[in-house]
């Protein structure tokens, strides 16, 4: 196979050609209420060819693996069509020629667990939620593990075989009383095994208590607040607030955005350090090589408050005269790689939690996450639940906390960064340009942000 793939992409009439073949096996287990909802197995076999001719790209994806020569020819023909209409220049940043075979290193291999064994663990969690008692009336448990064998070859001589594992899930407690349904979720995820699924009992109890507390909790009053954000939500915040804007495919052909995103520009205080890393082992965002075969590493986006880097594909790095970072990713063989995050995070600071809340007269402690969205300089992130801070102390639980901000102000308004640090993984993932969900992770300490606009009930 190795020799065949290499021969397919070499000596072609194109500036660059790559081929990716992918085989995956996925197990899915879902409970909804007391009953098992779904237990499924899924197999995928597919591949794609991408070709570059004079700055124009052709891309062909397929799941019939015969006639690969024809797929290569079609990708080149399409790239040439683009180039003929609009001749440009192919400029890919140099990347090392890699020859590697990567085996997954796992703590507890889900492939060695029987379906019955996995089901039993999850069933236990499901029962735990249902036995919590009123107002918890229902539950959801979702779980998947996915093994991928990926073969990649390009016309520069790189050939990589990678084994990847992606595992994710969540246990959701659902509370209901008098027409009001509320819920809270405990997510988990891993790139190195099943161990992350074990020992969640205390966290699940916490999710049940918090879902119960949301019943009868008032909707937060709309307005501008000082907000303390827990590590889970802070992870979503940094992903939405700065991660997406750092993706260089927004920037490389946009001269005005290049000015806005000039390296060295100050975006926050000297205590603010933001990074995106491919080599944090164990989290879902871990990957040794991206989908262009580029080795990943840790990329600082903001160091001591100043912009120092961005997330590149070989094309965006080449056009901007910067180095490759290993951020070109595709959710699967059906899509070409584009600039994406891996594990994005804020580095810990020095503030203990008590220090962060003690001088807040009226504020909000926002926890856990439903997700977020970004567009241009603006972003939103939605908390799972929240607690009012009154006169320096945690007070009543409130619900429906969606926060918004813009990159030019909000990062500067981060005035305290906690000394703790945790990882956020879940069953979901990141979406961009119709490619969702992509396995990304978030890591962060608690952070404090002043002047955050929050939706809610008008005062």
């Amino acid at each position: 196979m190795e020799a065949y793939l290499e021969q397919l992409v070499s000596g072609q009439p194109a500036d660059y050609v790559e081929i990716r073949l992918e085989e995956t096996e996925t197990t899915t287990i879902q409970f909804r209420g007391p009953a098992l909802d779904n237990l499924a197995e899924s197999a995928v076999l597919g591949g794609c060819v991408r070709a570059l001719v004079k700055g124009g790209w052709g891309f062909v994806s397929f799941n019939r693996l015969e006639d690969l020569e024809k797929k290569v020819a079609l990708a080149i023909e399409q790239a040439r069509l683009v180039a003929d209409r609009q001749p440009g220049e192919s400029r890919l940043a140099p990347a090392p020629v890699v020859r590697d075979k990567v085996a997954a290193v796992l703590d507890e291999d889900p492939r060695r667990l029987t379906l019955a064994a996995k089901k039993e663990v999850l069933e236990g969690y499901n029962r735990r939620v249902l036995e919590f008692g009123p107002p918890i009336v229902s539950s959801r448990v979702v779980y998947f593990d996915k093994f991928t064998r990926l073969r990649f070859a390009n016309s520069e001589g790189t050939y990589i075989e990678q084994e990847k594992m992606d595992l994710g899930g969540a246990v959701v407690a659902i509370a209901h009383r008098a027409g009001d349904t509320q819920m809270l979720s405990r997510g988990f995820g891993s790139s190195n095994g099943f161990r992350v699924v074990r020992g969640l009992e205390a966290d699940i109890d916490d999710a049940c208590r918090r879902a119960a507390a949301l019943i009868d909790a008032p909707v937060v009053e709309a307005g501008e607040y000082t907000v303390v954000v827990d590590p889970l939500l802070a992870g979503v915040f940094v992903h939405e607030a700065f991660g997406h804007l750092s993706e260089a495919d927004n920037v490389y052909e946009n001269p005005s955005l290049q000015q806005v995103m000039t390296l060295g520009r100050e975006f926050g205080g000297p205590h603010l350090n933001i990074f995106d890393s491919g080599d944090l082992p164990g989290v879902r965002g871990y990957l040794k090589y991206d989908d262009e075969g580029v080795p990943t590493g840790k990329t600082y986006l903001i160091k001591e408050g100043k912009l120092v880097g961005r997330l590149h594909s070989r094309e965006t790095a080449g056009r901007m005269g910067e180095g490759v970072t290993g951020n070109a990713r595709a959710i699967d063989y059906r899509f070409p790689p584009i600039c994406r995050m891996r594990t994005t995070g804020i580095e810990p600071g020095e503030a203990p939690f008590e220090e962060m809340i003690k001088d807040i007269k009226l504020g909000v402690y926002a926890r856990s996450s439903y997700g977020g969205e970004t567009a241009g300089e603006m972003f939103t992130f939605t908390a799972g639940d929240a607690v009012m801070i009154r006169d320096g102390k945690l007070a009543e639980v409130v619900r429906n906390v969606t926060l918004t901000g813009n990159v030019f102000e909000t990062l500067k308004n981060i005035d305290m960064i906690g000394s703790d640090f945790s990882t956020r993984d879940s069953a979901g993932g990141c979406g961009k340009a119709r490619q969702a969900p992509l396995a990304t992770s978030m890591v962060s300490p608690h952070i404090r942000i002043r002047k955050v606009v929050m939706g809610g009930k008008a005062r």
Partner: protein
Amino acid sequence: MTASITRGRTAFAFDSGALLAKARKLGCDQAEVYETGVVTTPVNFENNHLKSVETAETAVVAVRVLKDGRVGFATSSRAGDEGVVDMAVRASEFGPEATFEFAAPSPVPEGLALYDETVADWPQEKMLAVGQEIVDHVRSLEDGVLGGAMVEKYIGYTRVATSSGQEVCADGTAYLALASAELVEPDNMIQVWRYSASRRLDLDVGAMKADLTRLYRHSRHNVPFRGGRYPVIFAPLAGADLISPMMACVDGMAVVKGESPWRERTGEKLFADHFSLYDDPSLPWGIRTTPFDDEGTPTTRRPVIEKGVLRGFLLDLRSGKALGQASTGNGYRQVPQSLPAPRASNVVAEPGATPLADLIGGIKEGVFVERLMGAWAGNPYAGQVSGNVHIGFKIENGEIVGRVKDCMVTVNVFEAFRDSLLALSRETQSAPPAAVLPYIPLDAVSVSTKA
């Protein structure tokens, strides 16, 4: 029974008959084979120029079996794969209890509009010309504006066959056109989009360009805005975020599982008289128009909310059985690899009689929201929708006067559609993924901004 629908030009990737026979041989009591094959060919323009031309071909088969009282489910994209039946049988050993049966033979509606030769025959050259026209237009708006466009056509088929003898197949086409304009200033960014999609090639590039121009011009000037309660007009793109909690609450499985707050409320008046919402799988050329759902059950247009009254739930085979009712033909798979679950086809809200211009003209001070950001995140069963106004404008004395930024709107749709729903527009527009909505004005919406 095979529906008499024109076969397109996509060859079947799997042999349903062989898969059903294999399931029978392996001792399954019942089996269902769903397969879909799709070819999409997008052309992409980014940053004012043609960037890529693509071809994507996928086929997936999904098999469900009932064996020894349990359900097994497996999917495969390995062309011609018969191993998928073994996988399903293996899964059935630990699978959920079988509480329902697969679709029995039943005729599906004929003559629905979902396959258009002109989409199938749409030449790449024409698709490229559409993209180029959009990008050229966007560039002409102002120096420094970056235009983007994606033009795509889709040709595919869906086939469902069950061991009880239901066998249905339909070919479908669709096009999708996306147009965007982006401007970056030192501390201000503008991104506006326009979207058009249909199973028929009824693309009006001129209208897309005109809409994009209007949105761009309105966005060009930011105006200050103070938080409070205001009348707000939600354009269809934003309106879809308001409708989505309602669709979550009529999901039959959410009803069965006790998650939906509406489970005891069928026949009750929940909303204002002038609000009616339909699930319409027969909508001519609708993006989700289909004669049968992904379980092979015939589909039919049905009211979800009629004159404010909750009419019923969207059911698949499982949730229908659990509620003692028949499937409503709403068993759809979110992606071919997912289990069928209750889901809407085309969601259509009945328009009103008031021209949009009069709706805007009647507002002294308020907001026009084109698109919300982040409003999908949150608990749908509580009816709370909270989002950043990504593209929205201030209305002052009946006129749009400029863009509002850094501002959030929060709506409890359960209360607002009952108490504060003003007259709906007579104009409708489609919004992704498959809604056709009028402009929805709500009174006294909570709007929060910077202090």
